[in-house]
């Protein structure tokens, strides 16, 4: 019966790919010292149908929803580790963040224009380039048991850059919708309201869940499950109403933290659940990439990577001493901010309804995502090791 065999084979494709990716991750880590997530990315890319493999492009499907959830968990954890009081105690950190993002925006915009990209795509590419994807950073930091100023600052700067990127992206996308097909209302809806409502929903969840946990006797172990379920609900809710699940998840984490329910160390990464979903997340992101697009945009991508690296390290180094660390640690912080891929792919994935699908096919983007999905974690890992912030037993 060919139909059921077809069904069977298509059903086992994803579980099989995930298992292969996991095996690749373990061996890559043991033999080559490669961060596991880099191997997940390589596996996902190779197994995609557009390359040599069997995975159909997962955009828009159920796997995409799972990836949204996986990333939302990571963003929640990142938000939970953000200490807003630090910004008040050390304003130079905030300055570093703003300058770092602004410099990247300007540099990448200039590069894109130089390559002859049109105005609107150049602006969107510049906005996306500001973001440092927290997925790679948090995974690498946790994998190394990293602790220290480079680790802490990289996490904080990553969170701030994501917030700035979502806002900039929505505003530019909104502007673009206004200036081409849609109406004024659609444009406003796409930017200001989406940003405000997403953040508001996340904050509301933070208050409610923290309050709920305070009523339970066992905040330690209950917290992991309640937070995970709340993140799931928040993600589906914001996706259904076309708000930003990314923004909502960060806001949720930040508010939950400042409402002070303490996570115990065992819950970093959301335990096994987080590990499992991370495999899926990184395979998913790489499987959306088509090698033909990579080839087309490779020059632009290389130029953007260089511009981004330069602007980020220049900013973090310039403000290093003022914000209380060595030049060297400042420089390493800038390097550690290299990863970008997961955030960009999911932001685009969740913006499909804005009718800017052409952005995904934009020149350079596929190559950029692929480059940074594989190289980004390596650079972050190298920077944390050079900063001496990895646990000796995890140096590998």
């Amino acid at each position, binding site marked *: 019966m060919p139909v059921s065999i077809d069904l069977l084979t298509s059903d086992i494709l994803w579980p099989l790919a995930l298992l292969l990716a996991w095996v690749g991750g373990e061996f890559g880590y043991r033999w080559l010292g490669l961060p596991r997530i880099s191997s997940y990315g390589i596996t996902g890319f190779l197994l995609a149908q557009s390359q040599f493999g069997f995975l159909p492009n997962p955009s828009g499907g159920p796997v995409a929803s799972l990836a949204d959830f996986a990333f939302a968990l990571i963003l929640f954890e990142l938000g939970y580790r953000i200490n807003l009081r630090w910004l008040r105690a050390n304003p130079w950190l905030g300055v570093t963040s703003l300058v770092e993002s602004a410099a990247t925006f300007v540099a990448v915009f200039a590069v894109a224009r130089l390559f002859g990209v049109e105005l609107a795509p150049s602006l969107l590419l510049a906005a996306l380039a500001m973001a440092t994807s927290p997925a790679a950073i948090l995974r690498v930091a946790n994998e190394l048991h990293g*602790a*220290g100023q480079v680790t802490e600052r990289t996490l904080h700067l990553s969170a701030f850059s994501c917030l700035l990127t979502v806002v900039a992206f929505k505003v530019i996308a909104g502007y673009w919708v206004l200036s081409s097909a849609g109406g004024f209302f659609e444009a406003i809806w796409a930017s200001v309201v989406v940003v405000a409502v997403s953040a508001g929903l996340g904050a509301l969840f933070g208050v409610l869940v923290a309050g709920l946990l305070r009523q339970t006797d066992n*905040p330690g172990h209950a917290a992991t499950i309640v937070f995970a379920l709340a993140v799931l609900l928040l993600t589906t809710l914001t996706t259904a109403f076309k708000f930003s699940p990314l923004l909502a998840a960060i806001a949720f984490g930040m508010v939950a933290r400042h409402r002070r329910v*303490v996570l115990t160390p065992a819950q970093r990464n959301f335990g096994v659940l987080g590990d499992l979903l991370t495999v899926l997340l990184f395979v998913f992101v790489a499987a959306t990439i088509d090698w033909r697009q990579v080839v087309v945009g490779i020059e632009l991508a290389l130029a953007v990577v260089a511009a981004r690296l330069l602007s980020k390290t220049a900013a973090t180094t310039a403000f290093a001493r003022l914000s209380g660390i060595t030049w060297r*640690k400042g420089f390493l912080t800038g390097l550690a901010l290299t990863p970008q891929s997961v955030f960009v792919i999911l932001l685009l994935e969740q913006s499909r309804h804005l009718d800017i699908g052409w952005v995904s096919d934009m020149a350079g983007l596929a190559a950029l995502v692929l480059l940074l999905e594989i190289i980004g974690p390596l650079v972050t890992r190298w920077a944390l090791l050079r900063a001496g912030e990895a646990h000796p037993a995890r140096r590998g």
Partner: protein
Amino acid sequence: MPLEPFKTSAALSMGVELELQLVNPTDFDLTAASSDMLFLLERASFPGDVKPEITESMIEIATDVHIRHGALLEQLRRMRDALVRAGDRLNVGLCGGGTHPFQRWFDQRIFAKPRFEEISVLYGYLAKQFTVFGQHVHIGCPSADEALYLLHALNRYVPHFIALSASSPYSQGVDTLFDSARLNSVFAFPLSGRAPFILQWAKFEADYFAKMETTGVVKSMKDFYWDIRPKPEYGTIELRVCDTPLSVERAAAIAGYFQSLCRMLLAREEPAPVEDDYLVYHYNRFQACRFGLDGIMVHPRTHQNISLREDILATLRCLAPHAAVLDAQAALDEIHDVARSENHAQWLRRLGQVSGPAGMVEGAVSRFRKGAEK
């Protein structure tokens, strides 16, 4: 290397060292931040001495030599303020407490410095288990023989300092039921315990230290982890049984109490110490570690059972004239309040029952800051 000569120092001068915890303000676990903290503290002029300790999540501060409790307290407060400011700039929390309630010792990183790495290799997991935080008080002695006399005359008072400073009720995530679980960790080391009962420095040097040195077990006084040890290079004796209290005010009060007590003992107001005093030493020490101020100790001479609380209050009455001379009444007042109410271990335990181990660290961090924010 023979024992260095015992320097003389101003009698009853004092200095305090505190080992402090560096914690992450997100989950309140220990965090490896001492290199970053030291870099920042060394750039500004720190009002005192600051140095790394064996693991990266510890930092040690030391005051100058002081004669008066008031000046000591004033310096400790300035040091505390500087530390809190630096911690705020780096997103690092600082706190006292003899143990971290839930850190896992195998997660600790050894600070990269030859002596620490040697210790780590020698002691294996004990070195990491040594992630405990103590207060050391130095008292200046006019001569080496006076130092040994004072060291042994203090034997019966050691439990006072354990109970008053105790701030380590939890270890590795559980309530140990001890007020000072920290001392149990210290006790695991082969050269911990008490100094041998020798009252003349010449004899101590020739009969004990030289012999120990030829065994190859020790190289200097630093290798002994005694409850009280002579420190020839400073000309002091060093009290090492105290947990780091949760506030610098309490640390200064304990130093002031210690100073007044030493003055009384050096004035020979009590009969001289004898070897047999140590028959009850370890029992009394256990009582203080386990039950804190509610411990019952055995008087080494009368063999009567006395409550530690009562004994501290009685001692405070005897010390009043000495404190008046030393200008240390404020310190004794605080000790009086502690003996009448509770030590920091009991405060932490109550907090732990309500808000869990992480909540205890959060409480300890805000208690250390208090005063810095006024």
